[in-house]
């Protein structure tokens, strides 16, 4: 498949001139942060753009022009020549049909039960009963396998996989990626993998294209790109990606936020956020030029290697012996499901303790119990001070920046209200709080809708700190943020220096944040200890699986 000069526009320009080629037998990665236009590119390549969006340019498959083709032509191509696997395994399957029916209806030629079972076995489902189950009876990983079997049922030459593992657990994610790679090799098909995760793309792909604000800014083999990025944006992304191998003294994000394609159509898309930008960058749009065969960049300059900052930011934390949290034998069940099966842990003053585990491990229930949002069935929770009310001792930063702030209140009103819940002495003002999290004081008058995801998460941190809590719980605080923003927020959390219970599924993030680590699986602590020791030499089989499923750092 060859995509050239692809432009997609709705009410504004979204994708601005994408050129990309995928041959059979190769895996190409298309990497970009949210809003870069990568998913729409995939949709356009299968003729499935949502209503109201138009594509111009050219999409050819084996030399045949498809863009602008009639639906009948597309239908003859889809499934048999090119197929699309989407992100959300919970939404992709028809809730009213069984797993087997999904595969059977997509088959061409033989449609008997034996063939369906063979196809399911190909994606690693050996239990023949699965064919008769409905999607709601299957786990996320199983659904994604069924979807993959259905997508490949008509033996397409090209599979476009749009964030196929983003909604899955780390270990499942790894299994599905390995499965896609195995199938790609066995069938000799082409794969276009669309992902926001550089590490995933680097691990799996023969060639990687980096997308930014609706265009491709760099393309090349992953090994070379990791070693010497040819575009400052790639370099910035690489610097911002946390690694599981060591604790970086300082996390560096990219300043500013992503522009829309329309805003930057006549300039270098990255110029406004680039440290190397010159006046030329803002005057004309740099073409995607060839550095050497297979290596393309849209930057006019030679990229300076990033100076590694080896001395850290000021870390104010000092670990002392007294405890701010001790949890003993915490149990909580929902019906027959055991969310917490007797969990014990403690956090010392000034210490940052990481809690890791997959979905269903009970890590969020643990946080909610400590916060008092859920009443445990048994077990005790002791906080720093038995006299002060709970809300002055422990506060939380929640995951989703889009809902973490009340859309009806201004930032200032939110912070004032929160601070009023704290001790009466030395109450913090909104201005002080905003300054603390590195936001302009003028933001107090804004409503959350006027803030970016990273800025909202900063306000949420300010709100949590406003009562001067002894313990800050962070429940996946950066899981919904783009990599370039994530680093800023993590660095901020390091700087504020409160004792922390840091909950995450991401081992690379927890390596950067936690002194000590607790690994949860199915509501039980399976391993705990010094972060470096646990991650470098995991003792429990589950921890080993978790560590093994982290994509290698670029």
């Amino acid at each position, binding site marked *: 498949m060859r995509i050239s000069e692809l432009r997609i526009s709705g009410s504004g320009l979204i994708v601005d001139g994408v050129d990309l080629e995928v041959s059979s037998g190769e895996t190409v990665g298309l990497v970009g942060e949210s809003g870069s236009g990568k998913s729409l590119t995939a949709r356009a390549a*299968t003729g*499935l753009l949502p*209503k109201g969006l138009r594509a111009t340019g050219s999409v050819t498959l084996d030399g045949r022009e498809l863009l602008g083709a009639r639906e009948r032509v597309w*239908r*003859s*191509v*889809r*499934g*048999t020549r090119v*197929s*699309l696997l*989407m*992100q*959300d395994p919970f*939404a*992709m*399957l*028809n*809730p*009213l*049909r069984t797993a087997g029916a999904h595969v059977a*209806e*997509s088959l061409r030629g033989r449609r008997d039960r034996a063939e369906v079972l063979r196809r399911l076995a190909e994606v690693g489902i050996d239990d023949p009963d699965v064919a008769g189950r*409905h999607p*709601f*009876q299957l786990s996320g990983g199983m659904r994604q396998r069924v*979807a993959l079997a*259905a*997508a490949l*049922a*008509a033996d397409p030459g090209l599979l476009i996989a749009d964030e196929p593992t983003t909604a899955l657990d780390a270990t499942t994610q790894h299994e599905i990626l390995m499965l896609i790679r195995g199938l790609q090799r066995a069938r000799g098909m082409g794969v276009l993998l669309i992902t926001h995760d550089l590490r995933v793309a680097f691990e799996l792909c023969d060639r990687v294209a980096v997308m930014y604000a609706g265009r491709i800014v760099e393309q090349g083999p992953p090994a070379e790109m990791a070693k010497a990025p040819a575009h400052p944006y790639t370099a910035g992304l690489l610097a911002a990606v946390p690694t599981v191998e060591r604790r970086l003294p300082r996390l560096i994000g990219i300043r500013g936020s992503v522009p829309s394609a329309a805003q930057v159509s006549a300039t270098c898309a990255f110029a406004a956020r680039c440290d190397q930008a010159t006046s030329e960058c803002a005057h004309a749009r740099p073409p995607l030029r060839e550095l050497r065969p297979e290596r393309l960049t849209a930057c006019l300059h030679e990229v300076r290697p990033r100076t590694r900052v080896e001395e850290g930011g000021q870390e104010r934390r000092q670990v002392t012996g007294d405890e701010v949290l001790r949890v003993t034998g915490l149990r909580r069940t929902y019906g027959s499901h055991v969310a917490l099966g007797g969990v014990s842990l403690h956090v010392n003053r000034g210490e940052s303790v990481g809690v890791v585990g997959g979905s269903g491990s009970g890590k969020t229930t643990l946080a909610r119990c400590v916060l008092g949002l859920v009443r445990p069935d048994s077990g005790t929770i002791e906080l720093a001070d038995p006299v002060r009310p709970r809300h002055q001792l422990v506060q939380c930063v929640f995951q989703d920046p889009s809902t973490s702030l009340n859309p009806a209140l201004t930032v200032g009103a939110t912070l004032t209200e929160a601070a009023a819940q704290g001790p009466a002495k030395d109450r913090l003002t909104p201005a002080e709080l905003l300054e603390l999290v590195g936001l302009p004081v003028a933001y107090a008058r804004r409503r959350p809708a006027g803030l970016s995801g990273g800025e909202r998460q900063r306000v949420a941190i300010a709100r949590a700190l406003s009562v001067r809590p002894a313990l800050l719980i962070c429940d996946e605080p950066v899981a919904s943020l783009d990599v370039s923003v994530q680093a800023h927020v993590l660095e901020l959390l390091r700087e504020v220096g409160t004792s922390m219970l840091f909950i995450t599924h991401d081992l690379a993030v927890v390596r950067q944040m936690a002194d000590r680590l607790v690994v949860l699986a199915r509501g039980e602590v399976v391993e705990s200890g010094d972060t470096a020791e646990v991650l470098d030499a995991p003792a429990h089989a589950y921890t080993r699986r978790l560590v093994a499923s982290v994509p290698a750092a670029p």
Partner: protein
Amino acid sequence: MAVVKRLCAAVLLLGILSVLTYGLLAAAPGGPEQVLLGGRPSTPETRAAIRAQYHLDDPFPVRYARWLGDALRGDFGTSISSREPVTTVIADRLPVTAGLAGYALVLTVVVGVPAGLAAAMRRGGRLDQGITLASLVALSIPSFALSILLLYGFAVALGWFPVFGAGDTPMDRLVHLTLPAIALAAAQAAIVVRQMRAAALDLAAQDFLTFARARGLPRWRVWVSYALRNAALPVLTVGGLLLAANLTGSVFVEQAFGLHGLGALLISAVGEKDIPVVQALVLFGGAIVILVNLLIDLAYVAVDPRVRHKAATA
């Protein structure tokens, strides 16, 4: 299990409705004797006769049980105004109302479903805006006001339709019932249009529909086993609402067009304090609504494997 639970709820509801209905007799002004006497002279002898005939001296639960027993056997007593058995009175009036309701139902489906789909397909376009506006208007016009406007426009001013009556021959009846059926169907069709449009739009945004197309499934399969089956569920939920609109609406429409159906019967019975007839009609209407809602619940269990699974395990 869930099926049993729903059956129990339906029976409970019918029970409450019947107590309330029976309570009407006691709550009516002047008390039960006065009501049951109707227009007859009130002398100590007639009063005693009534008390004996209706066992009015028994305690309320006993009276209620006796009444309920009779009602279950299809005996609702005699109408006070016409002195005929209530069941006969109702059977006389049923054909007109049934014809009207059936006619309106056909119109509702024939107009509502395609209009809703068309609006969803042309989302945001002129056609969609027009259909959405029309459905909002149809939803807010009271059926009696619409009846009068139709009656004046098409029957009096243009003279295309008869002004009065329900017609005798089947063809004649169809002509007579056309305007009333339109007046009755308007609000229901609007409900169907809105629900259909919302269901179709919701469906169009679903990943599984895109994924079905991405696998190159034939168009008919995408339509039948993906779009229609999934859209049927939300539309099914308004079935109960439609029926309620139909029952209430027919009272007004029959009154406005001078049709002698059950709705008109209810109003005249209420006016004449003909309590046995009112009781039978309320119980009849209530039972229909409750039964249809039960059927819709059961249909849900049949169509949706998630509900079926819950029903099996709960």
